[in-house]
C-alpha cells in the first residue's frame, strides 16, 4: 500500500466533508472494516509496515474526530442563529413592591449614624410632659406647651412633638458617653397644608461625652449633609434659639439645585435650612443627673418629610399620606 498516497487521499476527503453524513462516508471508506487500510492492516506481516499503518490509522481517526467537532460546532451555530429573540421585547412581568420614600430616607440616615457608631432608638409616641418639656428646659409658659401647639391626652400626657424624650430616657438610664439618633413619628397641632402635617417624622441626634464641641456638631452635620445631598455640599451655621441648647444654631446646607447661585429651592440665598441644633443646655444635663462641667454634648433635629421634599422635589407633604401607588412606585 502506498501509505503516503492513501493518507493524502483520506485527509483530503476528511477535510472536504462538509456534513456529518459526508464525514461518516469518508470514515467508513478510509477507516471502516472494509477499507483499504483495515484490509492492509489485517494482511500485514512485518513489524515496520504494521507500525506505519497503525500510525496512519491514528492520524486519520484524529482527523475525523477533529473534523466532526468542527462540523458539530458549525451545526450548533447554525441552529442558534435561527433561535432569534427580539431583545427589545419586555421580559416576563414581575411586580416588585416599594419602600415608602420616608422609610428610604430614614434608612439612609440610620446608616449614616450607624456608620458613625451611633445607636438608633425608636421610642414611644405617647409621652409625659417631664420627658417632652420639663427635662428639655422648656418653661411652663413656652409656646409649644400650649394646647394650641401640642396634642394633649390629659394634663401631663401628650403626643410627643419631637423625638427628644427618647434622648432624655436614654440619658436618665445611664451615664455618658451617649451617641444616639432617635427617629419616628411626631405630632403637632398644625393644620394640614402643602408643607404642614399634624403627623410627621423626625430624626434627632444626641452626642454626649467629654469634650464635645460645636465644631464636632458642624462636622457631624456636614457628614450627614454630604451623605444625603452629595459630596460637594457645605454646611452653614446661623444663630438660633431653642430652650434645650446653648449655643443654639440653625444648620443649612449649600443648595444642591443651583450650587449656591440662587434658585427657588434655596429662596435665592444659596442655602437650604436643614434643621435646628446646638450644644446641649447645661440645665438639660442637670435634669438627667449629668454633671454639666464634665459632660458636654450636641443635639440636632431634622424633619424627614422636609428632606424628602427638598431632595426629590415633592411639592406637597400630603402626598406622603395619600399612598397613591402612582406616587409610591416612583421611589
Amino acid at each position, binding site marked *: 500500500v502506498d501509505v503516503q498516497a492513501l493518507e493524502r487521499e483520506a485527509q483530503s476527503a476528511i477535510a472536504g466533508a462538509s456534513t456529518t453524513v459526508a464525514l461518516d462516508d469518508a470514515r467508513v471508506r478510509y477507516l471502516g472494516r472494509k477499507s483499504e487500510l483495515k484490509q492492509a492492516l489485517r494482511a500485514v506481516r512485518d513489524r515496520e509496515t504494521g507500525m506505519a499503518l497503525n500510525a496512519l490509522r491514528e492520524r486519520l481517526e484524529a482527523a475525523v474526530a477533529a473534523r466532526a467537532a468542527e462540523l458539530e460546532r458549525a451545526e450548533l451555530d447554525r441552529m442558534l442563529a435561527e433561535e432569534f429573540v427580539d431583545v427589545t421585547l419586555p421580559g416576563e412581568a414581575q*411586580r*416588585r*413592591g*416599594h419602600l*415608602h420614600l*420616608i*422609610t428610604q430616607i430614614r434608612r439612609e440616615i*440610620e446608616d449614616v449614624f*450607624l456608620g458613625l*457608631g451611633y*445607636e*438608633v432608638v425608636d421610642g*414611644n*409616641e*405617647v409621652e*409625659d410632659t417631664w420627658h417632652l418639656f420639663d427635662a428639655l428646659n422648656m418653661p411652663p*409658659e413656652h*409656646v409649644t406647651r400650649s*394646647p394650641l401647639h401640642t*396634642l*394633649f*391626652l*390629659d394634663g401631663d*400626657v401628650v403626643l410627643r412633638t419631637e423625638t427628644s424624650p427618647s434622648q432624655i430616657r436614654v440619658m436618665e438610664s445611664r451615664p455618658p*458617653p451617649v*451617641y*444616639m439618633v432617635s427617629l419616628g*413619628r411626631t405630632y403637632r397641632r398644625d*393644620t394640614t397644608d402643602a408643607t404642614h402635617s*399634624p*403627623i410627621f417624622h423626625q430624626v434627632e441626634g444626641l452626642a454626649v*461625652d467629654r*469634650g*464635645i*464641641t*460645636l*465644631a*464636632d456638631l*458642624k*462636622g*457631624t452635620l456636614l*457628614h450627614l449633609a454630604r451623605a444625603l445631598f452629595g459630596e460637594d455640599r457645605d*454646611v*452653614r*451655621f*446661623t*444663630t*438660633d434659639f431653642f430652650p434645650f441648647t*446653648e*449655643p443654639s444654631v*440653625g444648620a443649612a446646607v449649600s443648595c444642591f439645585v443651583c450650587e449656591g447661585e440662587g434658585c427657588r429651592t434655596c*429662596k435665592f440665598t444659596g442655602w437650604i435650612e436643614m434643621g435646628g441644633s446646638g450644644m446641649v*443646655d447645661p440645665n438639660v444635663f442637670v435634669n438627667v443627673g449629668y454633671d454639666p462641667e464634665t459632660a*458636654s454634648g450636641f443635639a440636632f433635629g431634622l424633619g424627614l418629610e422636609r428632606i424628602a421634599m427638598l431632595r426629590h422635589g415633592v411639592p406637597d407633604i400630603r402626598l406622603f*399620606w395619600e*399612598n*397613591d*401607588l402612582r406616587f*409610591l*412606585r416612583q421611589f
Partner: protein
Amino acid sequence: MRIPLSWLREYVPVSVPTAELAERLTVSTCEVERVSRIGVPDVNGNLGLYRVGRVVDAAKHPNADRLQLCRVDVGEPEPREIVCGAWNFGAGATVPVALPGAILPDGRTLERARLRGTVSDGMILSERELELGLDHTGILVLPDPWEPGTPLADVFPLAEEVLEVETTPNRPDLLSVYGIAREVAALFGLELAPPPGRNPERVGDETPSLEIRDFDGCPRYVGRVFRDVRVAASPPWLKARLVAAGMRPISNVVDVTNYVMVALGNPLHAFDADTLRGGIVVRRADPGEELTTLDGVLRRLDPADLVIADHERGVAFAGVMGGLETEVRAESTTILLEAANFEPVGILRTSERHGLRTEGSNRWEKGVDPHLAPQAAALATELLVSLVGARWTGEAEVAGELPERPVIRLREDRVGVVTGLDVGRDEQDEILVGIGFALDAEGDVITPTWRARDVTREIDLVEEVIRIHGLDKVPSTLPLRRAMFGRVKNDQRLRRLVEDLLVGLGFAEAYTSSLVRDDPHPQALRLPDPLSAEQAVLRTTLVHGLLGAVRRNVDAGNEEVALFEIARVYLPTGETFPEEPRRVGAITHGGFTRAKGAVEVLHAALHLNARFERAANDLAHPGKSARLAGGWVAELHPALMPGGWGAFELDLDELFARVPERRVYEDVITYPAVHQDLAFVVDEDVLAGDLADAARAAAPPPPRPSFVRPASSTSIAAARSRPAASPSRFASRSSRRNERSPTRTRGPSGMGLWRRLLSASAPSSAPKPAISDPKLPIRGVARPRTGYLGSNLSHAEEDPQ
C-alpha cells in the same frame, strides 16, 4: 419684623451692600427672610425724575368734567401742563411730581400722554402711587412749602429697602429698629447713635393719678399728659416709615405710639384723657368684668387678665389692646400717654385666652426691658410736641422693684472648650462690650438690661461671643471616641428584613395616620381636644388606615394593589401610658391565599413556624379568617371591601422575640429525599392543619427531619369541586410528605408509618372512627408515591420496608 434700611441708617451708618448686611445678620443675629424693595425703583437716575412741584394754577379740564388741568412749577424755566384726576388741591399746593420717562413703583414707565386733547407733561402723585401709604382718595399734598424742583427723595425716602427679619423668642430687643442697629454696629464695627428721644421741656405741672395694684404684672408705669392735641394725618415721612415697617398709618397720635414701638421696641398706648373717669389703676380683672376692645369686640375678662382701668371700669387689656371707649378720636384734645412695662407670661396667657395677638402683645410676651419705658416716653413726647403740636403738661411714674442685671464670670477658655474655636480674652471683651455688656472691676460681665432675661449664665455668654465672632469660622471636626455602643440592633435588622421581604413580594409601603375617627377597641385612647373628628382616636389596629389607602388606589384605577405598613398602635392599659407595639399590617389583592402566603414567607424568613387556626374576626369573611400567634390573617368581609382582599396584621415585637438567636446546621449531604403524595377522604370539617399535625405527631421524634405539608389551598379547593373525588359529605385532603429515607425505596414505602399517621390524625376532641380505626377501610386512598427529590436524607427509617 420689617426693618426699613433708611430708618436703620438713622441709628447706624451702615453702607455695606444690603445682601452682605442680610447675610451677616442671618448668621449672627436673626434670620433675614428676604429683602424687599418698595417705592420708586432706584435705577438709572429714575429718582431724579421725581421732583417737588408747586401748582401755579389749576382749573377744570376744558374737555373733561372730572379732570383738572394744572400748570406745575417743577423748578424749570416754564411750568409744565399736567392733567390730574384729583381735586383735593388747588393753586399754591406743594405736590410730588413724576416727569415723563419715570418708572413708577408698579413698574410702568410714565409717558407724555394726550388726555382729552391736552398733553400731560408729567403726573401728580398720590400716596399709594408712591407706595408711601394706602391713600388714593387724592394726591399727596406736602405740608411744608419745599422749593419747586427739589428732588423728592430729599423730602421723604422714595425708594426703600426693607429687611424682613424673623427673630427668636429670646430676643425681644430685636423687635425694634434700634435693637437691630445695635447688632449691626457690633457686627461691622460701626458707631451706634444714642437711643432716639430727648425730652422737650415740660410746660405744665399736672400729675396724673396712677396706681399699680399688681407689681408682678406691671412693674412700671409712666403716664404723661398732653394738651392741645390736634389729631390729624401724620406727615408723609412718618407714614412712609410706618408703611415700610408694615404698620397702617391711622392718625398722628396713634402713629407716634406705633413709631416709638417700632423704633425702640416698647409698645405704648394713648388714651383720650377726657374719657377717663379718675386716674389709672393697673389691676387684675374683676369676676364677670367686661371690656369692649378697639376691634369692637365685647370681651368677658378672666380674673387672671391684667387690665388698665380708671376709677370706674377697665379701659384696656394691659399690653394687648386698648378699649374702644377711651381710644383717641379725631376730636380728642387731651391724651394720657402710657409707657409701661408688663410681665410676659401674663400677657401671653391673656393673649391666648382671648385669641388676641397684637404687635404689642407679641413684644410683651417675650419680655420687654423694664428700663426702656422712660426712653420710649421721651421719644413719643418729642414727636407729639414737634409733629402733633401738643403741649406736654404733666407726668407721673410708678415702679416696683426692677430686676438686677446679672453678673457672670466667663472663664477665658470656655468659648474654646464649648465651640472648638479659641477666641482670645481681649476679643471676647470687645465683642461683649460692643453689644452692650459691661465689665466690672474683677473682669466679670454685666448683662445689659435688655438682655437680662436671656443672658444669665456663662454658657449664654459663650453663645454671644461665638455668634458675633462668627459661626462661619467654627471648624468641622468629629467627636473623638473612647467608647462605642452603636450598632444595628436585632429588631432593626429584622424590621428591615420584613420590609424588604414584603417589597420583594410586591407590596408597596404605605404611611397612614395614627389618629383615626373610630377604632374598634372600646377603650382606645381619645384626644379630649382633637384637631378634627377625623383625627380623634389613637388607633389600635393598622387595618383601617390601610383600607382607606387601598380604596383610594382602587378608585384611582391602580392595579395589583398590595400595601403594607409598619407602625405603632396604641393599646390602652388602664394606666397612664398605652402599650405601643409595632405592627406590620397589609392588604392585598388575591384574597386569603395571597395574604396567608405572605405571612408564611414572612415566618419562614424569620425562621418561625406559624400555626393557623380558624378564628372569627369582625372585619373578615366568616369562612376565610385565621388567627396565629401575634396576629391574624383573613380575607376582608365583602361588605367592607368587595373583590376578595386578603389582609393580615402581626405584632412585630412578639414575632421578633421568638426569632431564634442562632441557627444550627442541619446535615445536607447524606441521602436524597423521598417524596410521597397522599390523598385522604375525610369529613368536610376536618382541617388540613389537623391532619398535618397528626402526621407530625405520628412521625418519629426529632432529630429526624420530616416535612409534612398540606397541599396548597387551591388544590384542595379543586378537589372539593370534583364530586367524583369527594363523595357527598367528604372532601379530599391531600398531604405531601417529604420524607428523608436512606433506603431509596422504589416500591410502596412506609405503609406502617402511614397507618400510624392515620390513626393519629383524628382530632382528639372529636374522634372520627372512620379515620381513627386503621382497620376500617379508609374512604379514599392513601397513595404513597415515592420518588427522588433533590434533597437529602439523614436518618434511618424505623419501619422496615
